[in-house]
């Protein structure tokens, strides 16, 4: 996406910490021309119910993302490495073979 004309309302991603003990979670996006406006709109739109603790807004076009065309090179390296998953290993409850 090309960056919108300077000052035109841009898209901002909204992150909310819904309560203590949780990380900020992505809840959606808003359009706003400046950061204060983005924060206000995020507050009005995403906190009408509940009592969240914290709110972040991040300009959508500053999120640098992996390209979908490169999905395989990026993300297909995990499933065939069984030693990265706990099931690969003997449960702690199991005894040794020569135990008897």
């Amino acid at each position, binding site marked *: *996406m*090309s*960056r919108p*004309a*300077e*000052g*035109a*309302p841009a*898209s901002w*991603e909204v992150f909310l910490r819904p309560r203590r003990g949780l990380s900020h979670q992505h809840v*959606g*996006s*808003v*359009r706003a*021309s*400046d950061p204060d*406006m983005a924060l206000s709109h995020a507050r*009005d*739109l995403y906190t*009408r119910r509940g009592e969240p603790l914290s709110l972040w807004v991040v300009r*959508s*076009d*500053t*999120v*640098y*993302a992996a*390209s*979908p*065309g490169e999905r395989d090179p990026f993300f297909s390296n995990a499933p065939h490495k069984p030693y990265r998953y706990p099931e690969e290993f003997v449960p702690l409850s199991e005894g040794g073979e020569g135990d008897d």
Partner: protein
Amino acid sequence: MTGSPARAAASPGAGEEAASQARLTAEFEALLAEGETVEPRDWMPDGYRRMLIRQIAQHAHSEIIGMQPEGAWLTRAPSLHRKSVLLAKVQDEAGHGLYLYSAAETLGVDRAELLAALHRGQQRYAATFNHPALTWADTGAVAWLTDGAAVINQAPLCHTSYGPYARAMRRVCQEEAFHVRQGYDLMKALCEGTPAQKAMAQDAVDRWWLPAVALMFGPPDTEAAGGDAKTAALGAAVSRRAIAWGIKRHTNDELRQRFVDHCVPQAERLGLTLPDPGIRWNEERGHYDFGPVDWELYRGALGDDTHTARQRLAHRVAAHEDGAWVREAAAAYAARQSGADTAGTSTEAVA
């Protein structure tokens, strides 16, 4: 978010294009068949994208235009409690519009374009809102019946195949279900009030029942439901496509039946009469029968050329035009601020 949709995840040479399209289509269909969610940067057929944009935009526009009939009563709400309730409701509708415009924007359109299309009359909104809200009781009838119909229409969309739309709809549905209760509560208060209040409630139901039944669910898409053969066939074709793509999950007529089944006992509890002499319980079907909708009448009455329809759009356009100087000022201010701190770097948007 306005992530540029990846129209071509691969970059095929001219000769390979057809084969590549076929492969991508097959992958897309397989994803849907597994009941997986389609996400913004996935490859998707143009028809799917277009159907989604049209549906989400129409839905968003309906929320925004739908603020008008109720919004007009904010200054006249007859108690401060009801004023608060109505304010919160109209506010939710603005919020729903915004969630949905955001969802549409993930498909590579801009909200400004969608609003421009609405203002030019090129994109539609639910024609139900082209009815005038003539009395205070109308705000209750709209919430109870129109929002009630919307909930039934929309609940399945919480599982629609397109991720951002489904996520927006989950938020919308949570709030909408509670609007229906608000409307019912308002009507109940009127029915328990003076005879004049109850008469106002009945009059509102008389005027809002058919628009909800007919227009909130769209034209018949099964012949059994009383659609003429041509309309039903056309409706059925559109519904089939939308259902196959997982955008829609039930026919219009299935949803309409569900709505009638919900409302009839509620109206009985309120002591209000639904204006359809054809309503009766059908033991065999396990559903309420109801009279066929006269579609020709509706098409005639609810084209763009009713006073209220023109007024709805004119009101929306006037708000937009009157606010232009404010939006320009905000943009100029932001440009001045960002000029002051950083020169913008160009990075690709996330979807």
